[in-house]
């Protein structure tokens, strides 16, 4: 098929960017969206133009590197990561807009690449269990009810791609933060740091300049891993509980 692409081009963080238009031809429906961009880039290189920069790595939908807003949707029209989006979701002659994640906490590095280190700093604020290597008891010492284990897993599936922030009208990172808080706080292993974890992570999230949550629900719709919206409510509950209990 033949497509028209309108792609955000920005040389570096300090230069203003704009949308640029490209035509691509001979696109197969079996191609992934990123393979379609590869095709474009091959042409651009041979023409002597700068190829479009975009983050990608595993191309299996798990590393969380790919991060494109396609026709206004984070990761495009299907509920998946950009790398797992295939061109069969589009039709011949379509015009497709491709933009980077937009949020002040995710500054653009180049073209479609953004800096998501703010997510790392949220994890660094408390998204871990303080257990030095070698200090662990036998794995079966603490049984975990299956329901809790499943709840933890459901939230641990977050790949940290940032689609939630990109989709949120307020650029809020509540879904990302809540996923990690809920994963660890429901487990007995995470219990000793339950209060400090949620308080510190939420505070770091605010410090990074993410917006507040208005429960618009766009994040959960965009999330390729299906982290559910009630995850945010569960974190709010943890946060309120921690405020009551925190002995600091």
């Amino acid at each position, binding site marked *: 098929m033949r497509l028209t692409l309108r792609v955000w081009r920005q040389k570096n963080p300090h230069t203003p960017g704009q949308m640029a238009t490209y035509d691509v031809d001979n696109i197969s429906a079996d191609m992934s969206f990123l393979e379609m961009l590869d095709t474009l880039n091959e042409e651009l290189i*041979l023409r002597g133009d700068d190829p479009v920069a975009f983050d990608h790595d595993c191309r299996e939908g798990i590393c969380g590197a790919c991060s494109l807003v396609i026709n206004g949707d984070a990761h495009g029209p299907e509920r998946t990561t950009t790398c797992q989006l295939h061109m069969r979701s589009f039709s011949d002659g379509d015009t497709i807009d491709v933009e980077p994640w937009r949020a002040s906490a995710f500054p653009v590095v180049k073209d479609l690449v953004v800096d998501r280190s703010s997510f*790392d700093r949220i994890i660094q604020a408390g998204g871990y269990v303080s257990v030095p290597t070698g200090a662990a008891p036998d794995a079966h010492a603490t*049984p975990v009810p299956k329901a809790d284990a499943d709840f933890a897993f459901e939230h641990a599936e977050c790949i940290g791609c940032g689609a939630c922030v990109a989709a949120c009208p307020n650029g809020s990172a509540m879904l990302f933060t809540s996923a990690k808080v809920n994963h660890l706080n429901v487990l007995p292993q995470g219990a000793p740091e339950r209060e400090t974890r949620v308080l510190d992570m939420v505070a770091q999230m605010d410090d990074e300049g993410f917006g507040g949550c208005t429960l618009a629900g766009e994040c959960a719709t965009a999330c390729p891993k299906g982290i559910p919206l009630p995850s945010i409510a569960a974190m709010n509950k943890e946060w309120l509980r921690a405020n009551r209990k925190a002995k600091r």
Partner: protein
Amino acid sequence: MTSSYTAYTVGAPLADTKAPAGPVAERWDTRRFEAKLVNPANRRKHTVIVVGTGLAGGAAGATLAEQGYHVVQFCYQDSPRRAHSIAAQGGINAAKNYRNDGDSIHRLFYDTVKGGDFRARESNVHRLAQISVEIIDQCVAQGVPFAREYGGLLDTRSFGGVQVSRTFYARGQTGQQLLLGAYQALSRQIAAGTVEMHARTEMLDLIVVDGKARGIVARDLVTGEISSHFADAVVLATGGYGNVFYLSTNAMNSNATAVWRAHRRGAYFANPCFTQIHPTCIPRTGDHQSKLTLMSESLRNDGRIWVPKARGDDRPAREIPEEERDYYLERIYPSFGNLVPRDIASRAAKNVCDEGRGVGPGGQGVYLDFADAIARMGRAKVEEKYGNLFDMYARITAEDPYETPMRIYPAVHYTMGGLWVDYDLQTTVPGLFAIGEANFSDHGANRLGASALMQGLADGYFVLPSTINDYLARNARPEPVDASHPAAESALRETRRRIERLLAVDGDRTPDSFHRELGELMWEYCGMARTEEGLRKALGRIPEIREEFWRRIKVPGSGEEFNQSLEKANRIVDYLELAELMCLDALHREESCGGHFREESQTPDGEAARDDERFAYAAAWEFAPGAAPVLHKEDLVFEYVHPTQRSYA
């Protein structure tokens, strides 16, 4: 027949001097006791560079920092959480024997040595089996959400090539969950200021001062700045080199630059031809294919693999009656059936496809059928166990695997070869350590399923943090070095020159076009089945591609900016050299073993025929500037698991 190849020379034999003598089960304890320790108060004075943040690197960085060392860590990804360990699906082995099904440390040890077709070092493998038990404890304590049963205890499953249920898993995302555990431990240290993390920074060279590894040259991928970083020891946790094949299940940016540059600086490269072809990947759809996607091997627990009995049978799968199907693995290997080790399953798939019985576009595929499993367990149970894999398959192929059987085909997945390391995981360059997939140590000629995660974490959490102490204690007061040291200056200069050279060619071919060409060549001649003729052809062709590369490569942009084409081209330079060594190694090893199948060396019924007389050694290659590589043989001694012809019939 004696080797007639002249493209290499044979050097002095190599031996692992670090593994203590004595009973294999006591060696690790003995080594830990004999190793010198660094006083806790002195640890913060030592800087250790760790390159890579996958399971091995992330775990090592976190653990070394916990011990009190100052860790400077690098990854090319935008976040340490994205290292490709994250894509591992199936699970992690541990000899916990929670099932009471006859498992033990010794059995895991035995299975791994046998599964590796007797080309791994017994001491290392036994240590791996011992440590496997602690890994699970550690990960559970970190909050890794392993699958659990209703009683709240951990669930396990059996996994490709073994008959006990020792594989712990977290749905189909075990690698992700384990990596996030290591990433979180690392994040805790970054917050504490004990790990200095450089994301989006790629190692481009090793700095060796007075014969010891003292630092690295790295490029900031955002600004393009090339700088040197110094330490008392350097740890490479940079993964495997499967991307030499262009199409593989590795991440797009996984690369061999760090290990290859270390090799050029003196680290021996062992068994480069040992690559694992994974049997259950989604077949390619066309020339646009940029990478291959693995479907967890756990699918073979319940799925049945078959092709039509007749050649060229192009009826839809569901219309082929039972008696016209050939469940070839169950037929050839009745006791292991669909669970034979990866190399065997892959080669069997290639054989039936070569016979013209392959399915799907181009006949490059076999069916993996869940109809029986769905009938037996019900769709809900199948969905619970494999739901996310089925979803992934459906998304990529637009076919519903609940209705029609999946199509699978083998793909390059893992490289057992890597930098040669001793029992301490130290390379032949003092102070340079290699852990995880980057080293060659534990899997021999073939890796068992769910063992990569085990090895990465064993190396990172437990082995390296113990053994590196010994090196640092014995080198307590290294000479201070900085960027003005001649060795550092020359490494920086060489790196800059290489980048400038790449940009200066301004030819007419893209980096990808060269990568694809090399990959096709390697898959054809150094892939699932290798022949002397083919390998010689490849060895003739690679230098030509290399020459053409330096004449026609086109890299747009500059070196002082975010430039993904430059990153790619720079990695291909190293693939073009490493590929040659892989072919040479494959050519010299005139036997079949594990993932290395030489058509000249097979049993009458087509199985790999080892030649223990001549090849029971690890081949460690030394880089010789301007001359042929030098082969150093480390003889493998089997005191506990006696080599037999592997039989899974």
